[in-house]
């Protein structure tokens, strides 16, 4: 690899799913397992329909633009990208890809890759509408218009990544930004994130600042998971190096390929001559819209604390270990869950232990989001509260939680059903201890006269057995010792 350098750029599409309605229609912006549920006439391009811009989608797009340190245009325009495809009911997509200016240009973002700080230049970020989704069968294809018109952010980076790790680290950072800023759940499983990957290789000794040295750009379309992004890049770098080594690289034309996830290779789609002419022009139904400084400032001031800031707070303010803090902030939903638990008075250090061990373990095993987990932050907070107040032991809580996960039950119910609450009442414990000592004169004698102090553990075991583990162990031990001593 040292002989060559990879020039990698990304186009990351992310649905904005945190608006009530779609970007140009009043249909609900939502994810549904039922097809064609969220549609208004515009979403199927019935004649006479017109787009109406959703201001909240623009607001969220501007927020992304600001976070990426992009320049915002003075006026907001949209344009049409014209092409025929069954998933595109209007025959064009409303986007802002070329002129005059998309919602953000010329940004830069810092991200961590393997604990090293890197920066990437953002060429532009723009707001557009998603297409319908399609299911293909042997003899037919089905179209679902639920997704048609969902607001979509397309972010285009400069070719600043040198390997797949950097590209994926950047994507993870972006996903967190979208989540933390409340722009999107950015859930790749729901198709909310999709990427195009550009890869070329150049000789390491050439001047990188001259684009002519970058080599021939190969674009891979619709790479839809971060894992596939990594595989695609690694595969493509290897493929292109092999072409270099065998002297065939110069014959390779600029082209578009796709990632075949089953064959684990990229496959040729079309060359430069077949590139589609999208015949862009400004969307005449949307008048240009002035983006005032006041509005931009207002949006800027409303950006919530993002991943980096939260992590810092967890370490410096809550005294968490950086490792734990990193786990908590990786997914905004987890971080939110943690924050809700500590809001109800639980010590951060206690909360983090429960979350990183039991809760995340269960959530990962179930392959769901922590939001969908039936043990809500409220339930966990109450459970930890019971331990803190000594009502149940830590072990009891842990057992209840495991059992709850296993049987999908509320752990608080389990505690109650199994009567796990500890016996705190001193007088009843004392009575039990006295009776026990009376019944075991030999053992009392062993303790008092033979110095066998371990006998106390035998008594403790007996108390626990009689109370089915409900006695507070510390308190019982205290009572046992004082009662034994009093018989000396």
């Amino acid at each position, binding site marked *: 690899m040292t002989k060559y350098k990879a020039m990698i750029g990304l186009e990351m599409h992310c649905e904005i799913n945190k608006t009530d309605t779609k970007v140009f229609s009043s249909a609900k912006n939502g994810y549904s397992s039922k097809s064609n549920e969220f549609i208004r*006439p515009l979403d*199927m*391009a*019935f*004649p*006479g*329909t*017109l*787009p*109406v*811009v959703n201001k909240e989608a623009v607001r969220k797009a501007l927020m992304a633009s600001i976070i990426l340190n992009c320049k915002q245009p003075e006026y907001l325009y949209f344009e*049409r990208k*014209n092409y*025929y*495809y*069954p998933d595109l*009911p*209007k*025959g*064009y997509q409303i986007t802002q890809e070329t002129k005059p200016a998309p919602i953000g240009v010329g940004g830069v973002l810092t991200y961590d890759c393997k604990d090293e700080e890197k920066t990437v230049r953002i060429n532009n970020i723009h707001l557009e509408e998603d297409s319908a989704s399609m299911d293909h069968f042997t003899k037919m*294809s089905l*179209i679902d218009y639920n997704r048609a018109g969902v607001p979509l952010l397309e972010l285009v980076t400069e070719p600043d990544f040198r390997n797949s790790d950097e590209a994926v680290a950047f994507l993870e950072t972006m996903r967190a930004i979208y989540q933390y800023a409340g722009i999107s759940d950015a859930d790749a499983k729901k198709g909310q994130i999709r990427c195009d990957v550009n890869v070329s290789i150049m000789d390491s000794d050439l001047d990188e600042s001259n684009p002519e040295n970058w080599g021939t750009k190969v674009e891979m379309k619709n790479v839809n998971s971060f894992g596939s992004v990594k595989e695609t890049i690694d595969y493509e770098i290897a493929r292109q190096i092999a072409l270099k080594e065998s002297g065939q690289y110069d014959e390779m034309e600029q082209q578009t390929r796709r990632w075949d996830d089953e064959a684990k290779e990229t496959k040729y789609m079309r060359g430069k001559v077949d590139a589609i*002419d999208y*015949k862009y*022009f400004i969307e*005449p*139904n*949307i*008048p240009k819209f002035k983006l005032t400084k006041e509005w931009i400032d207002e949006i800027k001031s409303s950006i919530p604390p993002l991943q980096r800031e939260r992590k810092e707070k967890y370490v410096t303010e809550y005294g968490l270990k950086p490792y734990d803090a990193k786990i908590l902030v990786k997914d905004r939903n987890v971080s939110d869950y943690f924050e809700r638990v500590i809001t109800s008075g639980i010590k951060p250090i206690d909360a983090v232990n429960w979350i990183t061990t039991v809760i995340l373990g269960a959530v990962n095993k179930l392959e769901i989001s922590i939001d969908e987990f039936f043990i809500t932050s409220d339930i966990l907070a109450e459970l930890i509260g019971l331990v803190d107040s000594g009502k149940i032991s830590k072990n009891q809580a842990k057992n209840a939680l495991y059992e709850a996960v296993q049987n999908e039950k509320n752990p608080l119910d389990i505690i109650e059903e199994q009567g796990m609450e500890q016996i705190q009442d001193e007088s009843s414990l004392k009575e039990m201890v006295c009776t026990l000592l009376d019944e075991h004169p030999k053992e009392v004698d062993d303790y008092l006269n033979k110095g066998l102090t371990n006998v106390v553990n035998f008594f403790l075991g007996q108390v626990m057995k009689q109370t089915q583990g409900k006695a507070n162990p510390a308190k019982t031990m205290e009572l046992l010792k004082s009662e034994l001593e009093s018989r000396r």
Partner: protein
Amino acid sequence: MNYMEKSIEEIHKDLIEKKVTSQELVEESLKKSHEIQDKYNAFVTIIDEAKGVEVSDELLSGIPYGIKDNYSTKDILTTGSSNTLKNYVPFFTATSIKNLEAKGAVAVNKTVLDEFGMGGTGTTGHTGTVLNPWNPSRMCAGSSAGSACAVASGVYPYATGSDSGDSIRKPAAYCGIVGYKPTYGMISRYGLFAYASSLDHCGVLSRSVKDAAIVVDAMKGQDDMDMTSWDSSDIHLSESLDGKVSGKKLCYIGELCNVENYPQASDELKKHLENFKVALDKTKSLGIEVEEVSVDKKLLDLIASVYVVIAYAEATSNMSNMTGIPFGPREEADNYIDMIKNFRTKNFSSKIKRRFVIGSYVLQAENKERYFFNAQRVRRLLVDEWNRLFEQFDGVILPVGVGPAKHLDSSKDALNGDVRALDEHLQVGDFGGFPSITIPDGFVDGLPVGLNITGKCYDDANVLNIAYAIEGILGYKGQIAKEVGHD
């Protein structure tokens, strides 16, 4: 009694005084619709099940009207006069039609247009050619051909139209009636089938300026469904018609109006321009100052090309929803490309396909700068030029077309040499979104001709008031077409 030949206010009075019921009006209008359909082929649909309604204080309540068939009407076939939508029954109604319904207006038919509004002849609709009620061997012009024909024939006092080049204002002149398209965005376009979105206007064809004002008062209003619509609630068109026009200033463009600029002018053209000058003299007698101005002929000669490039480009894109996949008579094929191709090949007329090819060509990356962007620049120059005129004048007054209605058989049309700018200048009204109204200004060889007044954006009330006063002195208000010949 032919109530449908009266003005809106007269009919309203008769309704209030119970001389006639809304149901009787509807019956008269439907009967007339069938007669006119048989003679001139003006309608795609006659709504025989239309019923009279209870009459309120609203001027339009209970009175029949027609809807151009590119306005979406819920549960009523809406074709755009195209085979692509020959069976399309929408499930929503255009905002402007809803507004008319809210005032109690009763739709009785859907009128023929040039396919999707793309044409100026009234000959390209899928149901065939619309004939001119003054002379059936002539055209009504288009695209609002059916609406113009029906209003001129006395089917009802008004019908809706749409105007992207001159589609309301040209047919109005050819049929001897009034055609008004207000400032862009005054009437919501939601539900109007898009042709060229930056040029498309809703409007009305009627037999008087007052009626046009009453109808647009009812149709207009800001609409959440159309971002280009604007709040005109402080504009009351019919109320502002007071006829006080003394001291108003109009201009006409010498390059277009002076007969000496047309060395090969036919008799028809000469008479048309002469008639226009007579109308100008009468206009002056109202105390309106009329001045000749000069506009660079080179710029005027570009109007038609600018229109072709911009309108066809936008049309190509707007009509891309016609794939036969989500709606329309779907074509079967092995793959989606052939499905779409077969549907479009089979159902669009050849004229439209020609426009799509041109529209597509001018948007191609290698041609866009030369054609599309240049057309947009010249559009801007033309609009600026007109706006400069509006700094000094209340409006530009010009003759419509090069004479009376053209022959359906174009070989019979008189040859005039280069008259393209005169024939197409109304398109500037759509380039700038200006309020623009055509009124009849007389006859040439027994056939009606018209003049047009165009003013600055948002100045609709002033433009209409001037037209109202001129209409008064010219004396062709409310005329009903009668066949004067068949050549």
